[in-house]
C-alpha cells in the first residue's frame, strides 16, 4: 500500500493524492471523454490567444470531417489504417509489450504488398480476388516479420522492445525509399508506376451503378477488412484461450509462468500479429488509396495508432470510434490553415489522456488545511 502524497501550499488548502483501491466501472470512459473535452477546450484557448476564432475553427473542422457523406467517407478512408494499427497496438499493449514500431511495420507491409505487383508476380491478367488476397498476405507477412525481430530479441535476449521497434521504423522508411528511388522509380520520381486495376481495393463509388447513394464516395474495401479484424480481435481477446493467456501474462508474467503458459512463444506471436495488422494497414493504403508505392504513404498513422489504442483502453470496438475521431482530425488538417492545428489537438489529446490516467489510479482531492 502506498502512502498518500500531500502537496502543501501557503493557501488554506492542499492537494491530496491517494492511491485508489478500486476503480468504478464507469470512471474509465468518463475520464477518457473528459480528457478529450479538456484537450479540445485547451485548443480553443490557444486558438484564441494566437488570434484565431476558436468557434469558427472548430465548426470548420467538424464541417470538413463530418459535414456530409462525402467528407465522412474521406474520414473513413483515414480511419481505415488507424483502426488496423490501433488494433495491433492494443493487442501488444495487453501483454505490456510496448510496440511503437507500427509505422515501420506499416511501411514494410506496403513494400511487400507492392512487391507482388512490381516484380510482375501479379499481372493485369491475374483475377482481382486472387491479386488482392496475395497482396494482403504479403503485407501481413512483411509486417509480421518486422514485429518478429523485436519480439524475438525481447523474448529470447530480454532486449528492450521500445528501442528496437523505434529504431526499426527508420530502417523500414529507408528501405522503402531505397526501393522507390533505386528499383521501381517511375521516371526518376520517388514513386513507382501505378498498379494495374486488379490490384486496387475497389472503392464504394464503383458500386454506384447498383447502389445510387455510393456514387462519388472514396471509401474502399479496406474499411470492411478493418471491421472484420475488429470482430476477430474482440473474439481473440475476450473469448479465446490465447487471449486469456495474453491478458494473464500482461497482468502478472510470473503467474503465467507458474500456470505453464508459453511466455516466450506468445511474446513473439503477439509482436508478429501486431506487426501483421500494421502491415495490413500499409497494404490497404497502397492498394486502396495511392495505388502505387511511394516514399510517403502514411502521415504518422503508426504513431497515431498508439494514441488510439490508449484512448480506447485497448477495447477493439472503442478503437473504431477513436479512429474515426482521429481520421476526421487528420482530414481537417488539410483544410485548415495553418494546418498544424489538428495536429496540435491530437497531441493535446494524447497528453491529456496520459495525464488523466493519474485520475484512474489515484484519488485526487483538495482538502482544507484549517
Amino acid at each position, binding site marked *: *500500500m*502506498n*502512502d*498518500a502524497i*500531500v502537496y502543501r501550499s501557503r493557501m488554506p488548502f*492542499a492537494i*491530496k493524492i*491517494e492511491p485508489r*483501491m*478500486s476503480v*468504478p466501472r464507469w470512471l474509465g470512459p468518463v475520464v477518457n471523454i473528459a480528457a478529450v473535452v479538456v484537450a479540445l477546450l485547451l485548443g480553443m484557448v490557444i486558438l484564441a490567444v494566437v488570434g484565431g476564432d476558436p468557434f469558427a475553427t472548430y465548426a470548420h473542422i467538424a464541417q470538413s470531417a463530418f459535414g456530409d457523406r462525402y467528407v465522412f467517407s474521406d474520414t473513413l478512408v483515414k480511419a481505415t489504417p488507424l483502426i488496423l494499427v490501433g488494433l495491433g497496438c492494443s493487442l501488444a499493449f495487453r501483454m505490456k509489450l510496448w510496440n511503437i514500431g507500427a509505422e515501420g511495420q506499416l511501411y514494410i507491409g506496403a513494400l511487400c504488398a507492392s512487391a507482388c505487383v512490381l516484380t510482375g508476380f501479379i499481372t493485369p491478367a491475374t483475377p482481382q480476388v486472387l491479386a488482392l488476397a496475395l497482396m494482403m498476405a504479403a503485407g501481413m507477412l512483411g509486417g509480421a516479420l518486422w514485429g518478429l525481430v523485436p519480439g524475438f530479441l525481447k523474448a529470447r535476449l530480454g532486449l528492450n522492445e521500445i528501442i528496437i521497434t523505434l529504431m526499426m521504423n527508420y530502417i523500414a522508411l529507408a528501405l522503402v525509399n531505397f526501393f522507390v528511388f533505386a528499383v521501381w522509380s517511375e521516371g526518376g520520381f520517388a514513386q513507382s508506376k501505378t498498379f494495374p486495376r486488379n490490384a486496387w481495393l475497389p472503392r464504394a463509388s464503383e458500386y454506384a451503378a447498383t447502389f445510387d447513394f455510393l456514387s462519388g464516395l472514396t471509401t474502399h474495401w479496406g474499411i470492411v477488412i478493418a471491421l472484420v479484424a475488429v470482430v476477430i480481435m474482440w*473474439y481473440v481477446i475476450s*473469448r*479465446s*484461450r*490465447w*487471449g*486469456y493467456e495474453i*491478458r*494473464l501474462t500482461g*497482468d*502478472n508474467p*510470473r*503467474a*503465467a*509462468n*507458474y*500456470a*505453464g*503458459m*508459453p511466455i516466450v512463444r506468445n511474446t513473439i506471436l503477439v509482436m508478429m500479429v501486431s506487426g501483421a495488422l500494421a502491415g495490413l494497414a500499409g497494404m490497404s493504403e497502397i492498394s486502396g488509396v495511392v495505388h502505387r508505392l511511394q516514399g510517403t504513404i502514411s502521415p504518422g498513422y503508426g504513431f497515431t495508432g498508439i494514441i488510439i489504442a490508449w484512448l480506447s483502453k485497448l477495447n477493439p470496438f472503442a478503437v473504431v470510434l477513436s479512429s474515426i475521431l482521429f481520421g476526421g482530425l487528420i482530414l481537417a488538417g488539410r483544410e485548415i490553415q495553418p494546418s498544424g492545428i489538428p495536429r496540435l489537438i491530437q497531441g493535446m489529446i494524447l497528453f491529456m489522456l496520459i495525464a488523466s490516467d493519474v485520475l484512474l489510479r489515484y484519488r485526487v482531492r483538495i*482538502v482544507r*488545511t484549517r
Partner: protein
Amino acid sequence: MTDAGTPAAAVRMQGIVKEFPGVIANDHVDFELRAGEIHALLGENGAGKSTLMTVLAGLYKPEAGNIAIHGKPVQFGSPRDAMNSGIGMIHQHFTLISTQTVTENILLGLDVPGFLIRLREYDQTMLELGRKFGMAISPSAKIWQLSVGEQQRVEILKMLYRGVDILIMDEPTAVLAPQEISGLIATLRSMAADGKSIVFISHKLNEVMSVADRVTVLRQGKVTAAGMPVKQTSIPELARLMVGRSVTFAVDKPVKTPGAVLLELKDVCANNDKGLPALKDVTLQVRAGEIVGVAGVSGNGQSELAEVITGLRGTTGGTITSGNHQLANKSARVAIESGVAHVPEDRSRVGTAPNLSITDNLIMKAYRQAPLANGWSLNYGLARKNAQELKKNYAILAPTIETSVRLLSGGNIQRTILARELSGKPAILIAMQPTRGLDVGAIEGVQQLLLQQRSADAAVLLSSEELDELIALSDRIVVMYEGRIVGEVSQPSEKDIEQIGLWMTGGAHE
C-alpha cells in the same frame, strides 16, 4: 478530556464505519489502546483488522466515527497527519528502497539532514536507537543484503526515529522465522516498557497469549471482544470469539496405509537464483495417500524443492519421476499435466494475477483442457458457473466472482488458490506454507482439505513453518538443512520436536 482520573487512552476510536463496494469492512467499531500496552487485534480473514488500522494510520477516511489521540479529537487527512500525532503503521510488505542503506532508508522523506548530509554521524544515532530497544542492525548495510527480519527492524527503527509512540504492526510475525519472532517480541516488550503503545495483528493465538496485554477481536466487521485482558481468556475462547463457533485444535487423522510411490526424487541437485547450490542430492519418495512434511528454517532449500518438482526451476542432477512421467528439467505445463498441483509460497506475486477477476484466476490451470477449452475458445460461461460453485464451497469471501483478486483479504486470496489447485483432483499436491496468514477457522479448513487429499489417495508434500501443524498432519517428516535432507521421522509426535529442532539448526545428526 480525562474521565474520573484515569489517564486518557493513547487511542480511542468510536463507532468507526468503513464500507467498500459490497462489504462493510468496519461496522461501528470501538477500539481503545492504552499507553504502554501491547494490544493484539484478532479476527478471521477479512474481518476488517487491516482496514481498521489503515483508518487509524490516516490512509482511509472512515464514513462515520471519531478518533481521539491522548484524549484529543483528531481527523486525519493523510498518513502524515497521523504521523504528526505519533502514529505509525508497518504494513506486511515493506516499503524500503533496496539499493539504499539502512540509515538512508530511515532518513528518507525527513527534512532532518538538511542540505549537507553527514551519514556517518547518523549511522551512530541509528545504532544507539537500535541498541536501546534490543535491535542489532548494521546502519551502512544495503537493504537487499538484509533478511526479512532485519528489514522489519529497519521499518521499526524508521518509526521510532520519527518519534512514533503508537506503533501498528500488521501481521509482523507471518514472514519471520521462529528465532526472529522471539527477537521481535523482546523488542516490542522493551518498547512498551518505554511507554510506547503497540497494536499487534496476528493469527497465531499462542503468540498473542504470550505477547499481548489485552486483545480485541473482530468478526465480520464487528467487535466481539473489546480490550479483554489476555490473562482472563484462553486460546479456545479467543478462537470461538473469532469464528463464532468452537474450533477443535486436534486434527483427526484417520489411520491409512500409504499406496504406491507417486513422486520419487533421486539425488536431485539444483541451484538457487544466485547460481549457488540450493539442493544437494535430495532423495525423497511420496506415496499415494501420504502426507510428507518438510521441516526446516526458511531458506534451506524448501522453496527450490517445490520449484524443481513443479517445473519452475531446472535441476543440475538427479531424476524426478511421477509414475512414468519425468519431471526434472521439464516445464510447468508438463508438471501440471502430470497431475501436480502447487500452492505457491508467494500467493500474490506467483499464485495470482491481481488485476484479473476471481473467475479468471480460478481457471489458470484448467483452461487448456476440455470442457473449459473448446477448440480455440474458452467457455467463459462454464468458467463462471464453476467459479460460483468454488466460491461457495471454499467460502471465498468477495462481493462477486468478477471482483479483482487484488481486493481480497490475504486469507481469501489463499482460498482462491486452494480452490483452484484442489478442485483439479491432483495426483500430487505440493503445498507451500498453505496456512500462513490464515485465521484459526481457515487453518482448520485448510488442514481438513489436505487430509481429504490424503484420503483421496493424493501424494502430498507439505512445507510449513509451524512444527505443530507438520506433526499433526504428516505421516512422515523430513528435515532440510542447507539443501540436504538431514533427518526423517515416521509417525511424528510431540516428543520428536526436540530432535527435529536440532536437525533444523544443523545440530549433529545420528
